[in-house]
């Protein structure tokens, strides 16, 4: 066994260990520890990715002396390793981008608790990515939920507390449904290990036994994870949670937390049930309908919004809708498009949150649209970054969003009865996206007279000030361009990774 194969286990344990360690350290030390942990795990994940891509074979790592199904195990393929690398990168940039806001908005004595939450969140995300066992997934879903809640409410004011309560209730509902689904599945198959469940489910499906409970358990799990990742009718926790929490929390929540659940859902589809059975069960059609509804309704709510952070949050609802629409197509091409959109949305949404905070910094900390007029001139880098993010979300070529829209459209063309709906929804949603994003871009590049600037106390900020945020913005822009310009190798990687899933 190569030493590299230990890295996934080590990265989970390292972040798990860093959580309690941060609670005994001071705020400053905990910050550096957190940055170090994320970077080390990112580097280790790169090594794992290279290893898996070269050997072209997924490997299983036994957690302990007992082989699965008796013990626990984790499983690493290309897709898992790529997600680990990518999540670490995004998390690192989000943490960098929000350094100033964290120091301002969080009480000094609670700084270290924030890093406890971030470390535990990273640990749970890694475990969700790597796990090959449904119950392990559930345990780490719990950690994920609780730490996300802590991230929302650490900036303590009325809005965040309400948002955290709402998030907690909705999210626990989702966890409960997921647990029920797992219980049903365990009762029917007698296994918790994904590969064994898949064998048993295939047997049951072939024999035509237990069709109703199987369908219901699939439905419960999909609904649970859809609630947790804010699919359209369950999105009501999202705008407040993203709109009022501290910057790095909002960025991490929108780009990583919901994506972790979606990735778990992909694993459940492919590794627990088998995608053929999922497609036959028509659950995907339900996801398709709600995905399309989310694409449209999320954008419409975003157009009505008068607060830039909440607008970006509502845009997340629309983008989550895209991802579920891709699943709903029921083809591998659709799922690959969705996975690409997971990556693209994670890179772009965190960019938008950080850039928007750069714009509000120079507008008297107001998030109202009126006050943002001309902000693109006062903070040039943030203006450029916001424009890049907006263009990417709208789907202009060169940026990452274009590729995922292209993939969705291609996948839609292949599916016979959903082609028209997919294309129409994509077109409408693109126009709606353009309406609210271009409206914002035009507003931040509308010059304001000098006397208003003076009167309202607007300031001008250079990229040199707040260096970490500028660095994060530049990295995000580069990441977006990379995803948009050289998408082919990444898509090939996804295709190979998805093939390894089966």
């Amino acid at each position, binding site marked *: *066994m190569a030493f590299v*194969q*230990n890295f996934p*286990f*080590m990265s989970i*344990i390292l972040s*798990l*260990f860093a*959580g*309690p*360690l941060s*609670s*005994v350290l001071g705020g400053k030390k905990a910050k550096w520890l957190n940055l170090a942990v994320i970077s080390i795990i990112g580097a280790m994940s790169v090594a794992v990715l290279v290893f898996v891509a070269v050997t072209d074979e997924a490997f299983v*790592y*036994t*957690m*302990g*002396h*007992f082989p699965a*199904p*008796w*013990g*626990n195990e984790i499983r690493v393929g290309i897709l898992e390793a790529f997600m680990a690398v990518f999540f670490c990168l995004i998390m690192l940039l989000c943490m960098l981008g929000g350094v100033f806001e964290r120091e301002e908005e969080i*009480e*000094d*004595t*609670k700084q270290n*608790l924030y890093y*406890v*939450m971030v470390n*535990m969140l990273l*640990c*749970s995300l890694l*475990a969700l990515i790597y796990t090959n*066992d449904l*119950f*392990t997934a559930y*345990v*780490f879903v*719990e*950690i994920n939920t*609780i*730490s996300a*809640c*802590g991230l929302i*409410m*650490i900036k303590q004011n009325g809005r965040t507390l309400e948002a955290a309560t709402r998030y907690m209730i909705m999210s626990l509902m989702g966890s409960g449904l997921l647990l029920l689904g797992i219980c*049903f599945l*365990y*009762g*029917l*198959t*007698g*296994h918790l290990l994904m590969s064994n469940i898949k064998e*048993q489910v295939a047997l049951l499906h072939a024999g035509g036994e*237990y069709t*109703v*409970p199987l369908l*219901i*358990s699939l439905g419960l799990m999909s609904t649970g994870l859809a609630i947790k990742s804010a699919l359209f009718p369950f999105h009501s926790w999202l705008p407040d949670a993203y709109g009022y929490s501290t910057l790095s929390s909002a960025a991490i929540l929108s780009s990583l937390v919901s994506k972790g659940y979606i990735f778990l859902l992909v694993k459940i589809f492919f590794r627990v049930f088998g995608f053929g059975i999922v497609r036959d069960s028509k659950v995907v059609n339900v996801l398709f309908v709600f995905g399309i509804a989310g694409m449209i309704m999320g954008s419409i709510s975003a157009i009505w919004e008068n607060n830039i952070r909440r607008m970006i949050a509502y845009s997340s609802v629309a983008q989550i809708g895209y991802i579920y629409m891709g699943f709903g197509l029921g083809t591998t091409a659709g799922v690959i498009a969705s996975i690409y959109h997971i990556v693209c949305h994670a890179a772009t949404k965190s960019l938008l949150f950080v850039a928007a905070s750069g714009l509000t910094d120079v507008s008297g900390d107001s998030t109202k649209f009126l006050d943002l007029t001309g902000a693109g001139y006062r903070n040039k880098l943030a203006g450029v970054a916001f424009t890049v993010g907006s263009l990417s979300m709208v789907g202009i070529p060169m940026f990452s969003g274009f590729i995922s829209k292209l993939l969705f459209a291609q996948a839609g063309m292949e599916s016979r009865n959903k082609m028209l709906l997919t294309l129409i929804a994509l077109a409408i949603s693109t126009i709606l996206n353009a309406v609210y994003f271009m409206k914002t871009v035009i507003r931040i590049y509308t010059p304001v007279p000098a006397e208003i600037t003076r009167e309202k106390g607007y300031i001008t900020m250079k990229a040199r000030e707040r260096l970490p945020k500028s660095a994060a913005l530049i990295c995000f822009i580069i990441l977006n361009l990379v995803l948009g310009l050289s998408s082919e190798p990444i898509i090939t990687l996804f295709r190979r990774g998805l093939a390894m899933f089966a």
Partner: protein
Amino acid sequence: MSRRLPKEQYEHTLSYRVKEWLKGTKDPFLGNVEMKPQKEFQEDRKTIVRRDREKKRLFEQIYDIKHNPEIRIFRRAYNIFSVLFCLFLVTMLLLAVSDLPKFGNASNPVNNEVAARYIENGLQETGAVNIVTGMILDYRAFDTLGESHVLFVATCTVLILLRLDGDKKGRSGVGYVMENDRIYEPKNDMILQTVARIVVPPIFIFGIYIILCGHLGPGGGFSGGAVIGAGLILYLNAFGFAKTERFFTQKTYRRTSFCALACYALCKSYSFYTGANHLESGIPLGTPGAILSSGLILILNICVGIVVAGTMYTFYVMFRKGDY
């Protein structure tokens, strides 16, 4: 019956006092126990008015009920849809349950090779007489590792929410809460203190027993830790913070739970690492049934117990006072 003792001396004996107490002429607690009734919770007019105003403001300005058709429609539809949804969920779940394999049937899918190995080889492979402990702390130790960190994260979240830091003035400040910690409870309740003095040491010993013998019989870190935590809470209620803070403060909690979790993580990463790389772990399993047996399970149980006890106590303190 003639009395051997003179009356004054007799009045000091135990039998006289018991007799008096039985007759009900004298209550030994009267005058000794603080019998001030608990203060009822009362709000002054100002806070009521302020709360009403804030509520009104919430509805008028933040939700803007009058001009917000979305919320108006939502409020109307909410009740109907919640009932419909519950009915739908109930029917669906009942339908699914009625189709599940019959409970207790020997040919059920859950009675497969996994359960068989746990039951048949559990003792030899883990050294734990209690198979459940062997399962959660050895076979599926990764899940339990996550589970104990769930408790830790939950405590940290409660600390974020409820811990009072800094020098806020007024009703939410640390000083106010410290001074008024016991407004609504009698001080130094003699009955409670006497009972606590008798009961708390056995509770602790029982909790420690449950933890230490978790691999031999029913019990383990989670249940034993909960018992110890309950003992701590009882002790705190009887004797107040001044006494408990001599040995258990927030710093103690953070350090002990860090040490316990770190120890857990280190032990388990050692066994994960050796297990996955097919190395000998070199940890003896001992003779089943002895206290010092079953490899790492005893240490893990102690770690889990420490975390659980600290978590219970910290939850209680956070909800009561917000700092300790």
